């Protein structure tokens, strides 16, 4: 190899020709071991949780998913039906409320706001994500709950009482509606900050092109920004959904912890994560612990599906942009 060829091949080639360096081997092994912890932990978590839940899985089988019970028949019957219902209703409800608000915030920050407003508002929205869930839950119990029973609930029930989901009067502050509102507050900062980054990354030429054709700002957003960022928005929403599915503390504080399936949001209920959190002192028998971990298995499956879906979308989009 001539000197010129060697230089063209770059430092990596020079390195390869060099002698064996123990320092390099050590660095490689140590860092590689650290990088493997992610995979190892994922495997370990799955294995441990499945093993511990096995007695309950054996006893109840898939019927666990369609049984509405917790500690019935002398602490021998457990089921997840009402918790799955509560999880789906609260997280979808929160997503429904949070989606338009988050998209609007992202649009305001990326398209409308002057620079100085953006530099104030964007960090504030992100600070909302920094509030610990236990503090939001405390606020939910002591401020939001009384507000729902006293003002908001009666008002909604009075005007929209004919809709089944608002068909009862809120009697206690702890109900599914409160849980939905708390979860909405939790996922707005997540979804809106991801979407803002997406919207900012839309190429200026595309927007300028649409503007030059006479489109209004909203038409540019609808015709250019949204289609361009579509996959990313989907991923952001799924991530927000995953967060809502898994939130235990704030939900267990405000939802009322009832083993029940009620169609009115003003009635108490419970979610998978919230039921697990609520049982932290009270798991007495081996079967109850196994059933509790069975709930964790279901939750793990939900969140793995949501996260893998979001990550795969993100990766596909990122790959497309590189090309």
């Amino acid at each position: 190899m001539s000197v010129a060829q060697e230089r063209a091949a770059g430092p990596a080639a020079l390195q390869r020709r060099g002698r064996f360096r123990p320092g390099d081997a050590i660095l490689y092994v140590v860092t590689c071991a650290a990088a493997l912890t992610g995979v190892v932990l994922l495997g370990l978590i799955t294995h441990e949780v499945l093993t511990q839940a096995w007695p309950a899985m054996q006893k109840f089988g898939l019927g666990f998913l369609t049984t509405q019970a917790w500690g019935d028949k002398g602490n021998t019957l457990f089921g997840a039906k009402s918790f799955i219902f509560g999880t789906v209703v609260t997280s979808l409800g929160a997503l429904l409320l949070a989606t338009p608000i988050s998209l609007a915030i992202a649009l305001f920050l990326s398209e409308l706001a002057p620079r100085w407003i953006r530099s104030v508002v964007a960090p504030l929205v992100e600070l909302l994500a920094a509030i610990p869930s236990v503090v939001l839950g405390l606020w939910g119990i002591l401020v939001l709950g009384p507000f729902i029973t006293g003002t908001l609930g009666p008002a909604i029930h009075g005007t929209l009482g004919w809709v089944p989901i608002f068909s009862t009067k809120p009697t206690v502050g702890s109900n599914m509606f409160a849980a939905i509102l708390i979860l909405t507050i939790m996922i707005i900062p997540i979804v809106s900050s991801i979407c803002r980054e997406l919207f900012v990354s839309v190429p200026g030429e595309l927007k300028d092109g649409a503007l030059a054709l006479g489109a209004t700002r909203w038409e540019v957003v609808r015709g250019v920004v949204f289609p361009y960022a579509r996959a990313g928005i989907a991923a952001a929403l799924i991530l927000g959904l995953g967060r809502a599915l898994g939130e235990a503390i704030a939900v267990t504080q405000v939802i009322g912890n009832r083993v029940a399936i009620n169609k009115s949001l003003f009635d108490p209920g419970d979610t998978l994560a919230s039921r697990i959190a609520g049982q932290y002192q009270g798991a007495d028998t081996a079967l109850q612990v196994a059933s509790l971990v069975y709930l964790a298995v279901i939750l793990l499956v939900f969140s793995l599906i949501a996260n893998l879906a979001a990550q795969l979308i993100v990766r596909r989009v990122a790959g497309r942009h590189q090309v």
Partner: protein
Amino acid sequence: MSANAPTADLFRSERMRRRRIVNRLVEGAATVAALLAVALLVIVVSSVVRQGWAAINVDFFTKTPAIYTGFGPRPASGISSAIIGTLIIIGIALVMALPVGVLTAIYLNELAPRKLASVLTLAFDVLNGIPAIVLGIFVFIFVVVGHGQAAWKASFALAILMVPMIARSTQEVLALVPASMREASLALGAAKWRTTLSVVLPQAVGGIVTGATLATARAAGETAPLLFTSALYSDSVSYDPRQPIASIPMFIFTSAEQADPVLHQQAWGAAAVLIGIILVASLIARWFADRSVRRLKGER
């Protein structure tokens, strides 16, 4: 788009008017939504500060939670045991998570083949999405069942939460370190490990500090991993990480469920302290991030 012919504007047609109105409405809605988010933050934080303020005094930081039996005057009560407990739990979690996170980032950014790096990154992203309560249950099954709760077990659960965050933010700054610096070092004959540790890593210190601080701030507020690993509502100060230890989030969680208004006020006070800690940490992190990114970009 083809329907929106530019001539529409020239003629000031009915259709143009409608398009303008729709545009206005959407712009207004977006502005209102942003205001709503800020208002939510102000409402929550202000009620924490207003109610917490009454609970905060010197005793609150120096005394332990007093058990009140219902007779006689209430003894002075505070959350010193919870503050110390949180510092210990978080400190141990940081010691566990920081080296793993930084080494992971080095491997993924500097050494790993691209395919493998992308698989491993996916694993960390998925790990990051596992609900905190499931991590708590995992640690409970793994090391608590049969052995009892302990502060270091809570730290372990929090560390699992922190590693992906630290690794991600370290990776982001490592990617900003100019390739020319690595090449210059290698060209001078330095080994790869020497280049990585003495040339690349020092450039990334600011970003690592930022990531570690943000991860710590987030972990400090987490309650779910503590429930099954160090759920103690203690009236005495403990420094032993082999025993369960009190913590601020657990104090808030348990006090909020009681019917006692004095305990509620203490919970607000504890929430104010917790938010204070997290805010200060986030501000420090932001400052470090701005500084190091500016430096790295300036050198380009």
